């Protein structure tokens, strides 16, 4: 077996089937196992060395205004699952995987949450009111009150696996596993399915059936934004059922009717800083940026003017507009989508080849026609795409040819 392949296996970089093939070879070949063991020993030494180097570099990173070393990466569970895995006794398995520090060990006494990420120290008060400073990795007992100082954001995983993130200057009481009181500030939560999850916020009571929402409280005012799933908001004797994408507000006297959330990506933008702490390829970051791109594309289309096509702005617009065009949310906006496709005819370059190929099989013939035109241009004619035939519907073999072509272009990029 080649050195490279063994190193890629060690680094968790092989595709699933290939990794399995290497694992089978290892099972049969003692010499290969010995080679891997030597590599693993060196890898372990390097990891240890660089953990110390990163520790030594932390002050430098702070001086440069950069987040410190990321949490666990590669061949690991998501950072937010680690404490749960530790609680479930899976720690030994992770240590074998060898890519991370040992997970925090849960305390013997009961806990309702663990702080998994914090951009700085925060405060924890226990049920007696005694306050102490805490950091990421802290296990929190029932009744604990968590306060994020100005300038600090933090993420928690609740006992049931639900996630909770607190914005700067927020305070929350963790009454029980599925019961919170937001005293002030802003919290986002992704709720695990199960029994109702309750968030109290002054006179406002939110019952969440799932799955993703944000609650913000400022003085007497409370705003509840539901991104996914369903929830019920009660205040002042009134009750509103919220559907995904809806928001309701309590202004201190009355509870509003549900209204549409303008932009989920903008509403949750404050969590970007937490994502930066958890590494650049964090799943939530990818999802957030995706939503942000789609939202940007939609907005750019609304205010799009023909002169922009000629300007430097075209380069900034093409990715969000292409992303918007193929997004699920855009399906209900046929006019905007046609406009997006037309605009792309002028500004598209190879960086948006993949979404354009997706648009070849769009339900809207006009979108298909535009996509064919622009792909014909980008391929220098080699794809031999006829816009009219594309509008009528392409045969699968042709689409496959275009997909292969686009994938190669994306690889070049």
């Amino acid at each position, binding site marked *: 077996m080649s050195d490279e392949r063994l*190193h*890629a296996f060690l*680094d968790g970089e092989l595709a699933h089937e290939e990794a399995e093939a290497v694992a089978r070879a290892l099972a049969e070949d003692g010499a290969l196992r010995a080679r891997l063991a030597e590599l693993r020993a*060196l890898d372990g030494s*390097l990891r240890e060395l660089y953990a110390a180097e990163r520790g030594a570099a932390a002050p430098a*990173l702070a001086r440069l205004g950069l987040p410190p070393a990321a949490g666990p*990466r590669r061949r690991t569970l998501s950072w937010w699952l680690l404490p749960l895995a530790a609680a479930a006794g899976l720690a030994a398995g992770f240590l074998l995987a060898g890519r991370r520090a040992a997970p925090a060990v849960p305390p013997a006494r009961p806990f309702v949450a663990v702080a998994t990420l914090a951009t700085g120290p925060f405060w924890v008060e226990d049920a007696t009111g005694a306050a102490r400073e805490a950091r990421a990795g802290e296990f929190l007992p029932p009744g604990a009150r968590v306060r994020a100082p100005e300038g600090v954001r933090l993420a928690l995983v609740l006992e049931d696996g639900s996630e909770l993130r607190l914005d700067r200057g927020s305070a929350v009481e963790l009454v029980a596993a599925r019961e919170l009181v937001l005293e002030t500030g802003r919290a986002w939560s992704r709720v695990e399915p199960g029994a109702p999850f309750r968030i109290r916020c002054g006179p406002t009571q939110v019952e969440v059936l799932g799955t993703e929402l944000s609650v913000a409280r400022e003085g007497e005012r409370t705003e509840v934004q539901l991104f996914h799933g369903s929830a019920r908001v009660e205040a002042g004797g009134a009750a509103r059922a919220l559907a995904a994408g809806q928001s309701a507000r309590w202004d201190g006297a009355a509870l509003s009717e549900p209204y549409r959330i303008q932009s989920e990506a903008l509403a949750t933008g404050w969590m970007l800083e937490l994502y930066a702490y958890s590494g650049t390829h964090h799943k939530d970051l990818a999802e957030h940026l995706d939503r942000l791109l789609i939202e940007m594309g939609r907005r750019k289309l609304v205010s799009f003017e023909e002169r922009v096509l000629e300007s430097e702005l075209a*380069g*900034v617009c093409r*990715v969000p507009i292409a992303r918007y065009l193929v997004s699920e949310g855009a399906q209900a906006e046929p006019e905007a989508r046609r406009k997006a496709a037309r605009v792309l005819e002028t500004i598209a370059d190879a960086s948006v080849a993949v979404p354009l190929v997706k648009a070849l099989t769009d339900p809207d013939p006009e979108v298909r026609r535009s996509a064919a035109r622009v792909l014909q241009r980008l391929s220098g004619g080699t794809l031999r795409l006829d816009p009219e035939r594309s509008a009528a519907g392409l045969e699968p073999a042709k689409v496959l040819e275009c997909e292969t072509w686009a994938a190669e272009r994306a690889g070049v990029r």
Partner: protein
Amino acid sequence: MSPQDGRSSATGSDATALLAAQAARGERAAFEALLALHGRTLLAIARAHAPANGRARSGEAEEVLQESALRAWRDLARLDRPERFLAWFAAIVQNTAVDRARREGLRAGEELEDPPARERGPSEAFRLRLLGAVQRLPAPLREVIELAYFAELTYAEIAAATAASVSTVNLRLSQARTALRAALEDEPE
């Protein structure tokens, strides 16, 4: 066969391109967001190329990164392909390190003094030998080690930062580790 490609999210690089395009138009917040997203990667590259000046090495890398950030901010208007921002910035970091080494009369990556004689335990001694061996690697190999271990990047991410292919990254990392093992064996304690 090759290590899996495209595991790094395309969205992440799209975001980089968007932020870079905004930064190029003078938006400082976008530039700062780019630094926050890629700061550790850039510091790893600075470490790989900074002139080694005894115990001041990490301080030197920090200076290199700071100077590079200023240069990058000043030159951003000349970035014509925002999607290549990281590789572009990485090249600036590398050039800055070389320039500083020239100014100071040092060869990039050269080790001037023996490591300080402190904490002489066996594990500390081994750590220093390993660090010394990394510093003696040729620059491209030193770079993949720093990116893989200091910045903890995947192959795809290293490829994006060094304008190399994923298979080149795989090859360099295996060559670097092979060289490190040989260096440690040649120089028994």
